[in-house]
């Protein structure tokens, strides 16, 4: 057991802040105090310890947020993503799960991963929000993830089954799953299509096939024939 284990949380918080400041000045630093603070916060579930580590690393997490290349395109503040990262971090490591971490760098690396996840998930949601209607957004918000995935798997299988060739299936994936624009498809798959016009022509044909498939319409809950 390290000497840090005998210190009060208040004393640990003070030493953790001091050692972190040393680290940031590129001076030799001792990681045991911060690690013990994290351990108390997560394994023991001590709220004062969690508040203390949050305070020490608050700016650091916000710094990671702004380093995410997509942050430039997000309409939220660094604090917003930092709160989410901390929330995910706590939930993932609380209780016995923290035992898998042996050192402070490991813990911080995971915290950084949580920051990446928070920004990335937000960007995925933003992209999705741009392409679906408000009614759909409401229905998706109420649908459990598992059911959503089962539905998607069935729909994707049906789309794959009714499209005649590999090229068509690839194009359908690009457009309906990844929501890429013709220009992005050209860049991602050079040589597959002559130009953007060729992509549009293939896509019109694919849309025609999908629109007239009774099973697909049933799966998507769209009854009217077009």
């Amino acid at each position, binding site marked *: 057991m390290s000497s840090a284990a005998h210190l009060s949380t208040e004393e640990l918080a003070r030493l953790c802040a001091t050692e972190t400041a040393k680290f940031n000045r590129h001076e030799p630093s001792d990681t045991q105090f911060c690690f013990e603070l994290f351990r108390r916060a997560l394994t023991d579930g001590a709220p004062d310890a969690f508040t203390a580590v*949050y305070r020490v690393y608050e700016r650091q997490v916000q710094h990671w947020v702004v380093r995410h290349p997509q942050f430039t395109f997000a309409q939220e503040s660094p604090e917003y993503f930092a709160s989410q990262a*901390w929330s995910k971090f706590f939930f993932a490591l609380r209780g016995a799960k923290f035992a898998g971490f042996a050192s402070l760098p490991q813990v911080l690396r995971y915290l950084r991963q949580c920051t990446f996840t928070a920004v990335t998930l937000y960007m*995925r949601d933003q992209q999705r929000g741009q392409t679906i*209607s408000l009614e759909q957004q409401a229905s998706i918000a109420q649908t459990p993830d598992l059911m959503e995935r089962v539905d998607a798997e069935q729909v994707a299988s049906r789309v794959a089954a009714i499209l005649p060739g590999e090229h068509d299936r690839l194009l359908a994936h690009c457009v309906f799953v990844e929501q890429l624009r013709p220009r992005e498809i050209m860049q991602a798959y050079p040589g597959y299509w002559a130009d953007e016009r060729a992509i549009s022509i293939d896509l019109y044909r694919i849309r025609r096939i999908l629109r007239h498939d009774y099973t697909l*319409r049933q799966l998507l809950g769209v009854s*009217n024939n077009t």
Partner: protein
Amino acid sequence: MQCRMPPPINDDQLSEALDGVAEHAVLKHLAICPHCTERLRAARTLEQQLTGTLYRWDCPTPDLLAQYATSELSAEATARMTNHLNVCVRCQGELNDFYAMFAAKETTVMPTVRPFAQAARYARLMLGQATVLRGAGAGPIIAEAGDVTIFLDIQPRTDGLASLQGQLVATDQAHWEGALVELRQHGALVATIVIDALGSFTCAALPYGTTELRVTALKGTMIVLMNLNIAAFGS
């Protein structure tokens, strides 16, 4: 119902109308033909449902991408991920984001705060409704944001601090289990609490002062309750 101006518009013309590139004659046809307008509506619904259902349905979570990038996945999972990355431009982009974010050397730098950030956050994260405070005085404070109600009971302690007992009630209670509550005064963090399965949270010692309460659910929803005057409610 039949087309009022035969021949009905064809499938490619429908697609052009959906893409906003239809010719004038097609738009004119749609303006006077309920049958073809209905076909257009059905086609639009189908494509919206299709993109809404399929959007990145087979993509790994960002956590898995991060584990892949740091070689923490099993051999089998790594092979699956590699196969997916070969056909998914979006995930390739996210993986590059991860590498870019992690390439930087560890240093603490103050982030740049954007001028619009506060307004954007509060405007969009109140779940579409203004938070309402009522019950100031002896009873609990009740704050509402969309389908979420937060009850706060603040009691003065003998040492000049206050204790806060909170209860979050929502239509989807499970969504808020494990949510992180942050209490801030003048921008500085004074306490963090995690909401339990029943929606309860407690802060044993809170200094008096104007307090901001932020609740962040694991799935990202955030509720912000501003200008909570602990002294006024607690005394």
